[in-house]
């Protein structure tokens, strides 16, 4: 393919000695840290790629170094480009690329928090772990056991205080705020009712699943952890993980399993979008809309339970296929339910759009301009609402999406209303995808038993979750993954919140925060938005670990 050679020449131009090897849709190169920044600039801006994520890995037992993988994505041609940089074990520092690629801010800080890789040339702060976590204890290092419990005294520290508030009254939204349903903490600085600045501190949901994945669990058990990364789009993670391992080990799963995976993925997308439409109506005070949307959604939960055995965490996905089959009777009942949903949801949206308050508060609020969206490489409905035409199901088709044709709704106003309409359209697309896939469901086995997973293989797998693209990066080990990194969609969308929330009335903060459909349990990331706010260590917290 000429595109791959184009990338190879671009990389060779900057780093002549780089050893590049290509697996089916990923270009791996190992680069020296001195050349990293200009390579990142070339790929991100000149080749017009999007930034997926960066993964820190403790490879001292393999090659004696720490490694950092920067992953870029070229959606149009369905390519992933992985730049690997080594850092020497006793003083791991790597030049930061955050000024070239603003979207890399978080994953660099996460690599620093969990692995201790320092980044030169940027302001560094604690991201993932709580402030009272001991300074020199990096959980993802191989020698640290997964159940280490540092002795810390949890005093009732002042929530989220980082010194002086920039301006105005500080309004704490969270950690237990009715609009969020999840423990995330936004501190909105308001003048009157206008939001001036936002600070965000999350990570209440950091459960250390990556450490568990590479220490306590085996390959097949990691599926069930992946499924519980997020309670709403759990199956995306489980499919993404399984595909990553299957790609790394070169396992070819039966056709029927691919179809069942795609069908259940689309059932989950319908349930997730209906859930969001209901919550958005609730946030705007229109409880009737919330109740009726969730009444319609109940049908989806029932057919999900019929197809997979559980209302939400389906648990039918393993490496090598699926555990539960779809017979004729289930197919018929699923099609009936889809007919009901299509009819009732159309009518309900017609009603909601005519409620005066909803239109007034959705149109023109929480604007995310197209260039900001491009700079922060936002994903999913948030990107499609701001004019970026990105959809992994069409760009890098996986599972059985090659067999279904569907169009991707894109609006370019970039306000809450366009994100609302993107999700409404996607519900109908999903219904038509399920119908197409159910018709072409091939016969055959649904799982293969015998396969072996060689050690030391790398793979990047990308899946389109209801909230955006969801990336799993895997290095295979013996009996369990050596390194398993999850980059959830909301991880990429939260930085865009600052652009959306700036100069908006406070009353719209909940609906704007909800408009990116944040799934904090996927993300559990934190970052400081404003320029000069640096996280000072909260002195009233005592460490007893040292």
């Amino acid at each position, binding site marked *: 393919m000429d595109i791959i050679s184009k990338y190879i020449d671009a990389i060779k131009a900057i780093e002549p000695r780089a050893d590049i090897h290509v697996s089916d849709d990923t270009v791996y190169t190992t680069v020296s840290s001195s050349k990293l920044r200009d390579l990142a600039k070339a790929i991100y801006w000149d080749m017009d790629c999007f930034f997926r994520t960066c993964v820190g890995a403790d490879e001292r037992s393999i090659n004696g170094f720490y490694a950092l993988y920067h992953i870029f994505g070229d959606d149009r041609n369905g390519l992933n480009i992985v730049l690997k940089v080594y850092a020497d074990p006793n003083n791991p520092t790597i030049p930061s690329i955050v000024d070239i690629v603003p979207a890399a801010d978080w994953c660099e800080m996460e690599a620093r928090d969990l692995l201790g890789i320092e980044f030169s040339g940027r302001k560094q702060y604690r991201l993932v*772990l*709580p402030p009272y*976590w001991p300074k020199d204890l990096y*959980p993802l290092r191989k020698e*640290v056991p*997964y*159940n*280490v*419990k540092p002795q*810390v005294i*949890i*005093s*009732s*520290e002042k*929530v989220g205080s980082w010194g002086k508030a920039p301006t105005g009254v500080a309004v704490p939204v969270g*950690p*237990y*705020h*009715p609009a969020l*349903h*999840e*423990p995330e903490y936004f501190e909105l600085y308001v003048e009157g009712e206008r939001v001036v600045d936002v600070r965000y501190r999350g*990570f*209440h*949901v*950091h*459960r*250390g*699943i990556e*450490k*568990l994945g590479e220490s*306590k*669990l085996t390959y097949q*058990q990691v599926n*069930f*952890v992946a499924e*519980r*990364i*997020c*309670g*709403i789009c*759990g199956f995306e993670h489980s499919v993404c993980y399984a595909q990553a391992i299957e790609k790394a080990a070169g396992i070819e799963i039966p056709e029927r399993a691919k179809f069942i995976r795609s069908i259940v993925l689309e059932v989950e997308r319908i349930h997730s979008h209906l*859930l969001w439409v209901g*919550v958005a109506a609730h946030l705007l005070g229109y409880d009737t809309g*919330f*109740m*009726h949307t*969730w*009444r319609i959604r*109940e049908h989806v*939960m029932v057919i999900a339970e019929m197809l997979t055995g559980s*209302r*939400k*965490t389906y648990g039918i996905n393993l490496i090598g296929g699926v555990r539960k089959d779809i017979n004729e009777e289930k197919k018929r009942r699923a099609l009936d339910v889809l007919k009901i949903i299509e009819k009732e949801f159309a009518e309900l949206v017609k009603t909601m759009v005519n409620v005066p308050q909803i239109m007034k508060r959705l149109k023109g609020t929480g604007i995310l301009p197209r260039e900001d969206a491009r700079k922060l490489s936002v994903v999913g409905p948030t990107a499609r609402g701001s004019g970026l035409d990105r959809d992994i199901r069409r760009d890098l088709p996986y599972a059985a999406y090659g067999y279904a044709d569907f169009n991707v709704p894109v609006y370019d106003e970039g306000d809450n209303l366009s994100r609302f309409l993107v999700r409404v359209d996607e519900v109908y697309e999903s219904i038509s995808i399920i119908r197409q896939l159910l018709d072409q469901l091939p016969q055959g086995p649904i799982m293969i038993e015998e396969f072996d997973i060689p050690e030391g293989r790398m793979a990047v797998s990308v899946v389109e979750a209801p909230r955006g693209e969801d990336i799993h990066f895997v290095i295979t080990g013996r009996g369990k993954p050596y390194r398993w990194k999850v980059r959830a969609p909301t991880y990429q969308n939260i930085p865009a919140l600052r652009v959306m929330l700036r100069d908006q009335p406070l009353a719209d903060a909940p609906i704007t925060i909800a408009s990116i459909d944040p*799934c*904090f*349990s996927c993300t559990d990331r934190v970052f400081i938005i404003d320029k000069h706010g640096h996280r000072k260590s909260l002195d009233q917290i005592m460490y007893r670990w040292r």
Partner: protein
Amino acid sequence: MSKPKFLGKSIWVFHLNTGSCNGCDIEVLDVLTPYHDAERFGVKLVVSPRHADAALLTGPITIESLPKVLRAIEAMPRPRIIIALGSCACGGNIWHSSYSVIGGVPELLKILDERGIEVDGVYYVPGCPVRPESIVYAVGLIKGLVPKKIKPKVKKVGG
């Protein structure tokens, strides 16, 4: 604090998410929707611990959210009940022994006793995610409408 006569009739619940994957949280919301409608038992989802009688605690209580959980429970006026929803809250799910999680309500109760915060009742509702019907059944149990079905079974294996 004797059990007040009217607590059985109207239970105001406060949703306390301590690091849950929000599978149980949407089932908590689902309990209010038409098919399950917990409001017919007088259950109302309130927004601040000040107004609440029961805390619907979901999630394995990560150490990041621990200080805030303690303050939220402290802010609830007595008599207060903790309802642990889902296998994360009852036993810590898959990450019960992870470094950043204390492992569910049994451990939280120890920390609460340590700090002298009394709680008037703890209910456990297993499930992953917990079914809306299980939550309705737990509410029925609190109100005394339904018997407790689950019994511990100790079975000795024959020779």
